[in-house]
């Protein structure tokens, strides 16, 4: 069992690194997508380990419930607080106390830095879903930290 502090430090160090490597115009977008891609790989790997012994999922909603409950608990030690869907392939996962933001701020301070701290996790979710056979686009939004919403748009092929 690794310690949580270690992951948090590593996570912020990765953000720091990606940020310093990117300079120029499209800097912010590129930085976010780099972090997102890293998260994607990690999500793919994690889901393989987590779902080794679980039965198959019935449908898309079942998959999403798994992400909100078991996957979130394994990674962030709490469940998603609220899952909403329009039943047309859009899901909104709300976490009222997102672990990677709790150290950052409780309110609107540093709001402009929040996207960097969410990019990795967006990738994590996308990677996890992708290995469960669900193609998606995952974005995050924050209005007041440490609460945040992840929006999952399922891509129909």
């Amino acid at each position, binding site marked *: *069992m*690794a*310690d*949580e*502090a*270690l*992951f948090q*430090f*590593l*996570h912020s*160090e*990765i953000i*720091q*690194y*990606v940020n310093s*490597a990117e300079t120029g115009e499209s800097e912010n977008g590129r930085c976010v997508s*780099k972090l997102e891609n*890293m*998260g994607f*790989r*990690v999500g793919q*790997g*994690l889901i393989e*380990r*987590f779902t080794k012994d*679980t*039965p198959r999922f019935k449908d898309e909603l079942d998959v999403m419930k*798994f992400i909100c*409950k*078991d996957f979130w*608990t*394994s*990674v962030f*030690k709490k469940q998603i607080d609220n899952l909403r869907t329009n039943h047309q392939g859009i899901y909104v996962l709300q976490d009222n106390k997102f672990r990677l933001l709790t150290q950052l701020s409780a309110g609107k301070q540093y709001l402009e830095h929040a996207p960097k701290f969410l990019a*990795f996790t967006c990738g994590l979710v996308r990677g996890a879903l992708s290995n469960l056979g669900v193609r998606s686009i995952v974005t995050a939004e924050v209005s007041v930290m440490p609460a945040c919403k992840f929006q999952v748009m399922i891509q129909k092929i």
Partner: protein
Amino acid sequence: MSRQSNRPTDSKKMNSELFTLTYGALVTQLCKDYENDEEVNKQLDKMGYNIGVRLIEDFLARSSVGRCHDFRETADVIAKVAFKMYLGITPSVTNWSPAGDEFSLILESNPLVDFVELPDNHNNLVYSNLLCGVLRGALEMVQMAVDVRFAQDTLRGDNVTEIRMKFIKRIEENMPAGDE
């Protein structure tokens, strides 16, 4: 149909696979960004240093370890308390130099390298080099300049992973100017 997830009981403990895989993703990214392995090693060490500088605060706050009186005590704290707290392993401390300023940490297993294989074209990559930086950074914050390097690595076919630590000097605390 309820799924059982084996939840860790300790609130500070988390899924170490997340850490391992995240670290793997970082190394992969660094290998893409830099041409040669030496540069990657340097970056990992630098990032480790930044982590160590902050991690020591967390460690001292949570472990209630006091000041160490000699390097042997430091070695014990690192192996028995710090490694156990953060990585869940207890390396053994061996190979003391006669002067008592150098020792080795032997890691039977290295959590960072689960599911890792080194490709042939990365012969000089020290995969877990972050650890060296962490140790160096943390000890610097408690006034110890040390040199840390990997002497053996299971990823390169050695039987164990060995981290060699050498005490260089005690860092003098600088008095702020005019504060006598």
